[in-house]
């Protein structure tokens, strides 16, 4: 079994601030983290390593500093880490990104045939959830998104059973290998790095490939050129025009504050009171 986990190094979006004048993202001092959803995917792959002695390769596309994120994955127990980094990848949208990653996975498969690809359900910077399906489609792998649990896997029979979150319930799906799985949060908890793996990570050199090494013969399908979508405008969300009508409860009892609120609320929105009575 050979499992490839795709990860992305992202700015910690909870700490992002927007410049008040230029409306640009202020990245200074914002820590780069591994996309949290990808850690769920990594843990699931590592469990296959524990159970089935699967080989785990971690893959990322990004600037050279993304090697740090990959090294962390080695510390958690991944066997190999590959960073594809090249100026031709700059400006890739999800279609171009899935092209570059799928091409690289095909290249990786030449050395060790790939049975499964794991991704997080989406990234916290782009939030699109499109790259996973894109990779599956390009590789012709079965596409299993929003997976909460792998119930059964039989590498010899090339069979897998998963629980997939769907609209209004859970689908229990039986599928075949090779497949691509995107994992949802809450499915597992990432293990602690072992001392041995931490030492290994410290000594480990992340494999860096440019587009040629990654087996990409059509660089025009990567980056801005290979991206059908183009960002035309970036701007701060408009403010909801109303400023709250304030009720200061610090000088009143909670009951007084509640009464004041209801009086104001029902006076200006009588329909709401009828709604509640219904």
């Amino acid at each position, binding site marked *: 079994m050979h499992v490839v986990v795709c990860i992305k190094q992202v700015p910690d979006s909870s700490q992002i601030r927007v410049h008040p004048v230029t409306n640009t993202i202020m990245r200074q001092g914002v820590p780069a983290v591994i996309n949290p959803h990808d850690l769920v995917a990594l843990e699931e792959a590592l469990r296959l390593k524990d159970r089935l002695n699967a080989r785990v390769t971690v893959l990322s596309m990004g600037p050279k500093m993304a090697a740090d994120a990959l090294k962390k994955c080695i510390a958690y127990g991944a066997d190999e880490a590959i960073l594809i980094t090249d100026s031709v990848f700059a400006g890739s949208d999800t279609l171009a990104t899935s092209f570059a990653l799928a091409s690289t996975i095909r290249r990786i498969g030449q050395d060790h045939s790939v049975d499964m690809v794991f991704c997080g359900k989406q990234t916290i910077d782009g939030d699109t959830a499109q790259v996973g399906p894109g990779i599956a489609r390009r590789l012709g792998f079965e596409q299993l998104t929003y997976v909460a649990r792998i119930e059964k896997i039989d590498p010899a029979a090339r069979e897998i059973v998963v629980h997939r979150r769907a609209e209004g319930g859970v689908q229990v799906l039986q599928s075949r290998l090779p497949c691509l799985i995107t994992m949802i949060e809450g499915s597992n908890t990432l293990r602690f790095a072992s001392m041995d793996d931490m030492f290994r990570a410290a000594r480990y050199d992340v494999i860096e490939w440019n587009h040629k090494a990654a087996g990409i013969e059509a660089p025009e399908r990567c980056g801005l050129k290979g991206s059908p979508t183009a960002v035309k405008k970036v701007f701060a969300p408009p403010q909801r025009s109303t400023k709250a009508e304030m009720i200061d409860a*610090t000088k009143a009892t*909670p009951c007084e504050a509640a009464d004041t609120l209801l009086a104001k609320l029902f006076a200006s929105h009588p329909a709401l009171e009828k709604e509640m009575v219904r």
Partner: protein
Amino acid sequence: MSAKTSQTAPHGLEDWRGVWVNVELERGRVHPVSWELLGEGRKLADQLGVALSAVVIGADDSATDAACAEAAFYGADSVYVVRHPVLAHYRTDPYTKALTQLVGRYKPEILLLGATTLGRDLAGAVATTLATGLTADCTELRIDSETRSLAATRPTFGGSLLCTIHTLNCRPQMATVRPRVMAMPARDTQRTGQVIQETVALSEDDIATKILTFIPDAAAEEAQLAYADIVVAGGRGLGGPANFQHVKELARLLGGDYGGSRPVAQAGWIGLDRQIGQTGKTIRPKLYIAAGISGAVQHRVGVEGADVIVAINSDPNAPIFGFATYGIVGDAVRILPALTEALRARLPTRAEAI
């Protein structure tokens, strides 16, 4: 890409005409986001002077018929329907095959899908197969009058910024929109649409993924949060999970639903399906009561469609007061129960009066 490149769109784009909406039919039920999309699609089609069509992919049964009729009530001029036993439940492969073949046959310029687990799974596969642009989770769709292209606006970086995205040189232009982001259009039962039966060669033998069982969510778990008229939500300001009962109690009294901010969902005070905001659910209630929620931008994008927002927070400088309708500065743990009591005292009297 500069605006100039848009003037020299590749030859052939003019062959693509019309706005399509994928109607999400699962286990006999249409997801309401489909009708919201038809409402939005109607505006785009009118602006372009083209037809609005719905695509219904489903089992060969009466639920599929009903979905076609409903699509017309909500504004579709025509409905393309693919019915086949293998389409009874959603699976990526046969649905992708059905949708991509239809798109290839009729060449719509815009294709919209709900940003649900089904819609996002399908949209990603379809856009890759068609090698076209796909913009996820849009909050606004417009037609750029100069280029006739779709200007799709979406939040990025967790909602801190919005960006407008165009797909200039590929068709169809694809976008997904989350439930409750667009308003529900009026349902007009006098409207009719032409229903066009389509055949796509499908066989169970060709589909590697099988559905063993479907475990429906228990009614209690099935959070109808996105469609509740009244929502009460709590945040970290409540201090701990035990205090969340005040949120649930008020929601229950008002016949509404409850939810929470990202930190409390992550901390396990509530289920992840009750998280409200950019990474959770978008809500559009008539009344939203936010207790102990500071109102970070990620939260704001999920709630600003509410008619009335009441915010309770002990910090007078909490960003939520910048976009709430009414703000109470005080401890939510004390004010929520007081509010519940005040409403309990008030509502029955009103009920008798009616």
